[in-house]
């Protein structure tokens, strides 16, 4: 399977379609990002800091104007059409978005008039479930609680699509587990989807169906998580096992005293000598070795 291709047999409605998204800044460029998110799935966006994940989300939300490319969000292909479907979109952004002095009550009072589907009872329940203190000012809330408040507000108007930027940042393991369970419940009916950007790839492995990996503004891969994990193996061997052919094929080669490790396309793993060990990879390893491979390529 191609690294930038999603299973083509899916006939579901895409809640997000991005094609050839490009945005140039003086010191950074996002280049040719393309992906789709069908209804009923969770997609994770991964990559190091400054890779372009947040810029991609901002482009989807029309907070920045792309230089080129097509964006379709909930069927909306123009900025005006995308704004018109905001009621079906719940968003949590990385960073503060409410005034310092607001409490839970003020957040509800401020947002409710804008969303026809705002559900005050649901918002109150979510705040209670997530243990968000009612009387604490936003500025005095912990980072994790601020994220939870944004999430509660994002869910309170019954969106079809959730776009979350680093939602697990600042959450303790229990809260993170509850969030991941909530997201799985959210998509369970096959009509809802989640796009989330995170550094915590273990979380993604648990819940994500698709993954988009961006590095230095370029799309490294996009596809189904299982397909991606099945497409590569981790190889380990002694110094003598590292033939020139193998060295050329290995992605993100790491040498050490006793031998080497690296990533190899799964198909290439069949012809290896018996002394070379192959193991399944994790998403985190995939990200690290692809990153290392890109870094090595730049150095060479």
């Amino acid at each position, binding site marked *: 399977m191609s690294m930038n291709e999603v299973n083509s047999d899916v006939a579901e409605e895409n809640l997000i379609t991005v094609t050839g998204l490009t945005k140039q800044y003086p010191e950074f460029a996002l280049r040719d990002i393309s992906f789709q998110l069908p209804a009923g799935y969770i997609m994770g966006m991964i990559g190091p800091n400054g890779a372009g994940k947040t810029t991609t989300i*901002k482009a989807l*939300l*029309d*907070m*920045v*104007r792309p230089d080129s490319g097509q964006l379709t969000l909930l069927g909306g292909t123009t*900025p*005006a059409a995308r*704004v*018109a*479907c*905001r*009621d079906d*979109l719940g*968003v949590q*952004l990385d*960073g*503060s*978005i*409410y*005034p*310092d*002095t*607001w409490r839970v009550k*003020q957040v509800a*009072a*401020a*947002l409710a*008039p*804008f*969303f026809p589907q705002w559900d005050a009872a649901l918002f109150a329940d979510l705040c209670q479930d997530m243990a968000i203190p009612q009387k604490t000012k936003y500025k005095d809330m912990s980072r994790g609680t601020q994220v939870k408040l944004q999430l509660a507000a994002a869910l309170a108007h019954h969106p079809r699509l959730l776009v979350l930027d680093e939602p697990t940042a600042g959450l303790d393991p229990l809260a993170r587990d509850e969030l991941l369970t909530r997201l799985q419940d959210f998509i369970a009916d096959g009509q809802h989807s989640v796009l989330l950007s995170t550094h915590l790839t273990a979380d993604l492995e648990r819940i994500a169906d698709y993954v988009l990996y961006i590095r230095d503004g370029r799309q490294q891969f996009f596809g189904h998580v299982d397909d991606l994990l099945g497409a590569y193996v981790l190889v380990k061997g002694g110094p003598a096992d590292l033939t020139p052919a193998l060295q050329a094929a290995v992605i993100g080669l790491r040498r050490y005293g006793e031998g080497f490790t690296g990533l190899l396309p799964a198909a290439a793993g069949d012809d290896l000598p018996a002394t070379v060990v192959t193991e399944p990879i994790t998403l985190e390893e995939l990200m690290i070795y692809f990153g290392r491979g890109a870094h090595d390529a730049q150095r060479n």
Partner: protein
Amino acid sequence: MHNAIKMMVLDCRAASNRNSIVYLFLVIDVLAVILFLTPVGDDSLFISFGALLGGTAMTLIVPFMAAAQRGLDALYALLPLRRRDIVNGHYLFGGLVAVSMGLNVMLLVGIMLLLQPSILTPEWLSRVIRFALMSPAMLLMMAAVEYPLLLRFGFDRAPQLVLLPLIGAGVGTGYLVSTGLQGIDLVSPQGVLAGTIVAVVVIAVFVVSLLLGRRLYERRSL
């Protein structure tokens, strides 16, 4: 228009302005009335006018300061609002602040007249009308100059760029309106005409500024 009103309300909430401007007016009004009852007399109205204008001018930019400090432009981008609705809301907020200042001056005049009806002379009335006309005019011109800059750059990127024209626009408008109306009896038909011309010019500049602000905010990366 409905969205612009909702945005204006959000501006008030975001800036906690609904309370702070009321408190500002209340404190200055009480001080003005206390001074009115001292030998300072009705000059207290004109002293308080300066304080009201300074405080209200700062209120004009509070939503932009709050937006810069807490990333509220991102919040606005998540709402079902077109960018032009957001800009319209900010300008409505500016208009509301200017009108509130004018209404507060009228309230203060009413209280003083109730306390001491003898102060009402044609000359005093003309002077009061000049101030009542000047204050919204100055505030609207300040907003007209400032808002496009704030919408283009944001308060965080250019506080000096924002504050200097703010003061300049206020002082300049005050001087022009004051000298333009000098010697004109504002209670006469000639005065009404002069006042109308001032109002039309100020509103026209405000509307042009609104159209410019829309274009600038439309292109801004948030």
